[in-house]
Each structure stands twice: as structure tokens, then as C-alpha cells.
């Protein structure tokens, strides 16, 4: 049996499931991917199999004549990229196990953010390095959907 990949948005209103193997995993530095994800680059994975939306559906923005991009309209998580009727690509960060999706190719290197070449030189600051952060962590309760499918969501009685 092939591997099953699941994922979804931060709030859990939209969930998906797709059967492996992975067809293609990449990062793209183009300006449209940067802006769509609010990020320095965008990581996407596509599959031969069809993606099933197992809870809710994405909302789409037509970002160009050929491409539409899906996101959750309740929490904003960028979820998909689709060129015409080609296979849908999913944002790697939205998978429950993003570590299972290793990008093997880079697009639009010309538009790399300048920090890209220095990622590994950046100083690391562990969580809870400041008093403020420690105070916040002590009382912080995450409302993010867990990294697995759930029977029902959100959990009853939890404030939004």
C-alpha cells in the first residue's frame, strides 16, 4: 500500500488527503509565490494521485490567467497552486508531516531573497530566550489543529 499524506490549514476547517508517491517537490522564489505566501519562497509538492478534500474546501484566488491558488478563508493558510487542469500542488508547510516532503528542485533562483544564501549563518535563538517569551509560553494555549486528522473540530468548549 502506498504512503498516505494528510494535511490542512492552521485552524482545521480545510483538510486534505493524498496517496503517494510524490511526483514533484520544489521551492519557488518567484515574486508571485513570495507574495501569495507572504514568504521568502514557496515550497510545493504534487502527486500523481488526486487530492481529496476530507473536510471543507479551499477558497481560490485566480492569481493569473492560468493559475489559481487555494487558501483557507477562515485562517488564511495558503494550501494549493494549480496550473490549468494540471495536477494540484500543495504547500509543504501545510502537511501534517512536512519533514516527509524533501524538495529536490529550485525555481526562479534569479529572484532569491538576499538572505537565502545565508540561512545557515543566522544566529539561533531557542524558544523562551527572553523573560517576555517565557511569561507568554507559560500561559499560551494553541488553537492550531493537531497534525493529524480529527473526528470533529474545533474541540467543544474551546474559545476562538
Amino acid at each position, binding site marked *: 500500500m502506498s504512503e498516505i499524506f494528510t494535511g490542512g490549514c*492552521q*485552524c482545521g476547517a480545510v483538510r486534505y488527503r493524498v496517496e503517494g508517491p510524490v511526483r514533484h517537490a*520544489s*521551492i519557488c522564489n518567484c*515574486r*508571485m509565490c513570495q*507574495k*501569495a*505566501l*507572504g*514568504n*521568502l*519562497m*514557496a*515550497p510545493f509538492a504534487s502527486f500523481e494521485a488526486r487530492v481529496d478534500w476530507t473536510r471543507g474546501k479551499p*477558497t481560490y*484566488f485566480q*492569481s*493569473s490567467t*492560468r493559475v489559481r*491558488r487555494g487558501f483557507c*478563508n*477562515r*485562517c*488564511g*493558510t*495558503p*494550501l494549493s497552486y494549480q*496550473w490549468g487542469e494540471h495536477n494540484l500542488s500543495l*504547500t*509543504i*508547510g*501545510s502537511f501534517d508531516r512536512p*519533514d516527509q516532503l*524533501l*524538495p*529536490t*528542485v*529550485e*525555481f526562479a*533562483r534569479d529572484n532569491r*531573497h*538576499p*538572505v*537565502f*544564501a545565508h*540561512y*545557515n549563518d*543566522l*544566529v*539561533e*535563538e*531557542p*524558544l523562551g530566550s527572553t523573560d517576555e517569551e517565557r511569561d*507568554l509560553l507559560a*500561559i*499560551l494555549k494553541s*488553537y*492550531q489543529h493537531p497534525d493529524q486528522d480529527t473526528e470533529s473540530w474545533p474541540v467543544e468548549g474551546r474559545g*476562538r
Partner: protein
Amino acid sequence: MQQNNSKLTGGCQCGAVRFRADRLGRPSICHCRMCQKAFGSFFGPLVTGYGVAWTRGAPKYFRSSNKVRRGFCGDCGTPLTYEVEGEESIELAIGAFDDPTVAAPVIQVNPTDKLPFFHALTGLPVRTEYSPAWMTPSAGLRSYQHPDHDTAVWPPEKGFPS
């Protein structure tokens, strides 16, 4: 640090939400699992924004924890902010700036959740050969993304050029 505030503008992909900041603080990339999922990416790139004004529209918010809300565009989904309750400044998504080079991250936070292949991202092979199947549809491609500067009216009154 870049402090030329005429350049400190940005917004979402579709242009429904636009912002301006007076000045920026420390730019960072955050590896935490919540930033990964909120951004759909390997990390969240954020810079502290002071005096942030919404110059068109306003973000929609998701309360991602009891102390934090995250702003995004309800029309196109672009992640825009990370806001801790009670703080005057807000964190802005670096990729949403019109010129994302105004904020070059100087630190990486929450390295515990760093993805195992993060260190290898800079060494990926680059795709430079494009198949005819890829190039042919690209020929007629027109972007509907908002330009990387403020606009008086958006989307264009006369529609997008055909």
C-alpha cells in the same frame, strides 16, 4: 536597518489589503510548527513593524492561540501579520512587502522545530531547462497580482489588459 519609510509598503497578492509601516525592527525567521502551518511553508519570515497603518482594506484574523492573532487577506489568503495581545508593534510577513529585501532576517527563532532539510535548501539543483509544454502556456500568461507599489485604484478600472 532600512529606515526609508517611503519603501515600507506592502500588501496581499490580490491588493485588497495594503499597509505601510513607519519603521521596522528585527527581522527573523521562525521555525515553529505554528508559523510553518500558518504560512504553509518551512518557516515564518517576520519583521517587527512600528506605526503600521492599513492603507486599503484590513486583514481578517485567526486567533491561533489565546494570546496571538494572525492577520491575512480574506480575498486571496496572503498571510500578513502575527500579533501578540497587548503589544503595540505587530510582526509583518516579510514576503508581503513590496520590496521584501527591506528586511533581511538576522536571526532564526524556535530552532527546535527546524525541518531536517532546511540546511540543504540553498544547495538544491536549479531548474533552468523548461519543456515546450511549460513554455507554450507561459507565452500568454498575465498576472493578476497587485503591483509592488501603492495604486490609486485596484483592480484596474478598465479591467486587466487582454
